[in-house]
């Protein structure tokens, strides 16, 4: 399985992860190598096999619908690269 540069650029856009143009070729090669390795799975007959959802069978627990923690904006914002009041700041999204 080989990938072309356009495909890598598309995946990178989906992942919101910048890959410089001059690295697309190398990354395409690396990813193609890994995809070729995982192709082995096609040898396995998985007809009618349920995909695994959990290694240990357990139901999801429910808890009372009550606030258990929160209400501490200073803790939430403590590591923010940029803040204004109790808000995270991002570049302008709407003109």
């Amino acid at each position: 399985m080989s990938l072309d540069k356009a495909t890598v650029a598309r995946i990178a856009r989906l992942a919101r992860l910048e890959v410089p143009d001059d690295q697309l070729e190398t990354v395409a090669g690396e990813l193609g190598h890994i995809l070729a390795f995982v192709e082995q799975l096609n040898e396995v007959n998985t007809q009618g096999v349920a995909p695994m959802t959990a290694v240990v069978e357990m139901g999801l627990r429910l808890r009372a619908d009550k606030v258990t923690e929160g209400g501490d904006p200073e803790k939430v914002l403590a590591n923010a690269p940029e803040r204004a009041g109790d808000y995270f700041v991002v570049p302008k999204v709407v003109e």
Partner: protein
Amino acid sequence: MSLDPASLTIASARDGLKAKQFSAAELAEAAIGAMQAARPLNAVLVETPDRARADAKRADQRLAKGEAGALEGIPLAIKDLFCTEGVETTAGSKILKGFKPTYESTVTANLWREGAVMLGKVNMDEFAMGSSNETSAYGNVENPWRRPGDNRPLVPGGSSGGSAAAVSAGFCLGATGTDTGGSIRQPAGFTGIVGLKPTYGRCSRWGIVAFASSLDQAGPMTRSVRDAAIMLGAMAGFDPKDSTSVDLPVPNYEASVGQSVKGLRIGVPKEYRLDGMPAEIETLWQQGIAWLKEAGCEIVDVSLPHTKYALPAYYIVAPAEASSNLARYDGVRFGHRAAGAKGINELYAKTRGEGFGPEVRRRVLIGTYVLSAGYYDAYYIKAQQVRTLILRDFEKVFGEVDALLAPTAPSAAFPIGDKADDPISMYLNDVFTVPVNLAGLPGMSVPAGLSADGLPLGLQLIGKAFDEATLFRVGAAVEKAANFTARPKPWWRA
């Protein structure tokens, strides 16, 4: 010259503290000194000597009052994947540089509750993605072991390479690790220590930086099987904050250490015998089989037919989960933020492009690809189906045996740089450990011998789900028979 933490185990330090041979403060001071002397290993990212002294002071007070916890006064190193309140937690990544959590992971909170002393945060592969500690944004960790007459630096294994180096070098008595595909067991094998990955759900994942959520599990790395039992007892337990944490009582693991293994049935999986595997790995495995036979175990040849598909399935499932878990690093709420981005999408892309190293980038891209429209069934569903088959293989053999014996890794530690250019050859390090994660089972590496060039080799025991107790029982028998007393020469003190 006084106390040397390298000469102690958790169990012997516990006895020494109770008998007042030394105080927790003295032990902490000795550990801090040894940690600082071991800086050439680059095992520690953040040293927390003041915190260690304060913890030790409190431990001495509790010891005096007879209120000692299971790890009272025991100096530990914490893998940098565990969030520690107010102490920088980077997961070995540039993207989390400077991040100081405002909360404490459940596992570390459990350790402090039992009186443990924090020495520092230790180095690791970036986001736990690696098998040699060479993907850390903060530099390689060097294995305390070197080949006799050869000064080339060796990898400590990964991703818990800093933890393994710290325990092996001896400046702490134990360290936390995490294991997604072998990240506790393989570095334990490479550095001659004990490492245990518990059953999925045994230890809470809350507050541990997530890599692949259906595979990640925290566990102890120590210098003896008994120490691993003591430490796991403190780490484990039900946590309502982790929806996959299991609400089962934590057994007294230490009580299993030293129990007879007579009559236990030990399976030897034939598929773990690989073409091209070094003869010394096979020899060590046969030695392990002989030891357990002598101890009264019955050896049973078993088959796990889907073993060879575990690694390819893992390299779909783990990157897929990683690509969604790592979506949170976007430069908005914490961590690195790229400068000068125009618009929110450019902010995300630049921040992540600058913040992630090459291996993390590779895995995020692979994960995004296998989850993308048109490929999801062919890759992700297929891998999860294969995972079901791998689990069924194990369930079938655990109908006839109590535990499995296999090598930990297909080689001893290798020189830094040797495999850095070939991701697939690096991935093959985990060929014996990955199936255990895919099936959620407990696995333990016990140091069992030295390679021809004088480096430690581990044997791996694999148990039934939630049957860590049997692993401690069999692991202690292997440990006793192996009598592995070799230690690395402390060249870093020179």
